[in-house]
């Protein structure tokens, strides 16, 4: 009873530092737009998959229940997914399972995030992701682990900050063409290097912002999809993987769990040569170095080679292997779970030739979106084709 699954519609809000709307109002705006975009109403939806990140941001316990009405989940089979920052690509993977299994013909996938509620800054809520006994007593901040990983990545491959900063320049520039973007900017590498130093080697412009926002897609089984649209985008491969949460004992220079997730998705999609077949990608880029780190984990670059591809312009929109044509988390913003789904939506629009000014040349037929999270040891990957 299994069936192919397509994305047939999408919706998104603006990503902003602080939204007037509540999380459920944002969820409703994105969900309604997704249904409108493909001419469906809520009664056409058989199941709902919600993704949202830590409850600590909102100060609302059981956020899945709280967001369920805005996500169209009442009186339907409804499920919340959560793997930290990986959630935004994990929620559509769950939606895919609902439909691919044959249990449902349609699934509304919604990701909503409201980070601004947490005072004085949502970064404080991240303290509790560290081990309560062996780590929290050291007063860590989330930036520590990224600074440590960034430094290890540079050390392993002999890189400098100047090799990595152009990711911020590229993505913030790409975001100037995205109508949801929170931090579109035309900046230089020196602007990144001279921005406030937060935790060497991480400067302010190396980091994506805290954001409020929501995104949604509609999934449909093969027959339903062809009835709903003549431009379905098929989810041909899904993969997810989790590495040790003893993060201090892992090789921080390479995201092996992302490779495992990617290989799972590539095998399912029949992809043998990812660098040739994946024409466009949205790797997760909450920090500059992460886009490069993830390109390598996704096997889209050799280990340590991604910065050279960046320098050569290969990852620009008009390059051979465009990365984050949307503007990514660095440019569009980073309302955690909604970011991953924004990336899925970008590939959906790019493959349909509907990405407006962001459209990459060459009529791409195959792309992927990836997210990453938990205690920096989760990789989630979706491969799409038109």
């Amino acid at each position: 009873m299994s069936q192919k699954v397509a994305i047939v519609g999408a919706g998104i809000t603006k990503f902003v530092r602080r939204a007037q709307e509540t999380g459920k109002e944002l969820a409703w705006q994105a969900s309604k737009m997704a249904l409108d975009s493909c001419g469906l109403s809520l009664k056409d939806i058989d199941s709902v998959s919600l993704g949202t990140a830590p409850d600590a941001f909102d100060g609302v316990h059981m956020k899945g229940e709280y967001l369920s009405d805005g996500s169209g989940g009442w009186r339907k089979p409804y499920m919340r997914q959560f793997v930290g920052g990986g959630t935004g690509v994990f929620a559509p993977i769950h939606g895919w399972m609902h439909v691919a299994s044959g249990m449902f013909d349609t699934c509304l996938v919604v990701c909503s995030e409201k980070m601004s509620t947490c005072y004085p800054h949502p970064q404080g809520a991240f303290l509790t992701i560290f081990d309560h006994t062996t780590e929290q007593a050291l007063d860590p901040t989330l930036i520590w682990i990224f600074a440590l990983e960034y430094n290890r990545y540079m050390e392993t491959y002999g890189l400098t900050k100047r090799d990595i900063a152009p990711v911020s320049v590229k993505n913030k520039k790409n975001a100037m063409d995205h109508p949801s973007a929170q931090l579109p900017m035309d900046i230089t590498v020196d602007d990144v290097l001279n921005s406030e130093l937060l935790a060497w080697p991480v400067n302010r412009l190396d980091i994506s912002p805290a954001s409020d926002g929501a995104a949604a897609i509609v999934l449909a089984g093969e027959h339903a999809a062809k009835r709903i649209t003549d431009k379905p985008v098929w989810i041909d491969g899904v993969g997810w993987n989790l590495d040790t949460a003893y993060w201090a004992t892992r090789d921080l220079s390479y995201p092996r769990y992302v490779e495992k997730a990617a290989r799972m998705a590539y095998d399912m999609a029949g992809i043998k040569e990812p660098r040739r077949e994946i024409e466009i990608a949205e790797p997760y880029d909450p920090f500059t170095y992460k886009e490069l780190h993830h390109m390598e984990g996704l096997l889209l670059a050799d280990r340590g080679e991604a910065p050279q591809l960046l320098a050569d312009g290969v990852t620009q929109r008009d390059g051979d292997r465009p990365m984050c044509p949307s503007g990514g988390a660095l440019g569009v913003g980073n309302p955690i779970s909604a970011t991953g789904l924004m990336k899925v939506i970008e590939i959906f629009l790019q493959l349909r030739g509907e990405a407006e000014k962001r459209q990459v040349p060459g009529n791409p037929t195959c792309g992927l979106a990836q997210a990453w999270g938990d205690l920096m040891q989760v990789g989630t990957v979706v491969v799409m084709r038109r």
Partner: protein
Amino acid sequence: MELGKFKLGGTQLKQSDIDRGKVLTLAQTPDLEYAWDDGVAIGRYLEELKNGKIIARKCNKCGRIMIPPRMFCELCWRATDEWVYCKDTGTVNTYSLCHVNWDASRIPEGEPLHLPALIHIDGASPGMGILHVLGEVDPDRIKIGMKVKAVWKKPGEREGSITDIMHFKPLRAARKKSKKKKSGGR
């Protein structure tokens, strides 16, 4: 569909909207306290920290000497076998010079930075490290690969916590020469 053809939701608020009462907010600080049990493995780890020692746990199947210690080997998926004392020295695997506190507030100019590091502990299996902080070091002279040693609180002041080690300091060289030197960024 093109995003540009839709009126997107999400209304940006400014601080002035909040200050002027355009938007009503309700603030609450939950008053919750937690008491985490140490568990078997970490309980012994903390007890040994109080004794001024770092202890690991060994799996006799894969041979890994693991720190922090654990009662089961997550790779072999079996109970671990024995306690093994490590040294209180190690190697800096990576580090940061951090100007930001846990709540995103900034460290005032001239005050010491946080110096988090991953330290691979001598006597544990290669690659086995812990998160801790560096001290008694000129931040500009910290290097990956630097040998470091734990600086313990006095025995009577230890309480069975990871902070019984105040910090790790360089075994040689790179020591802080003058207290007056400011730990500026790079």
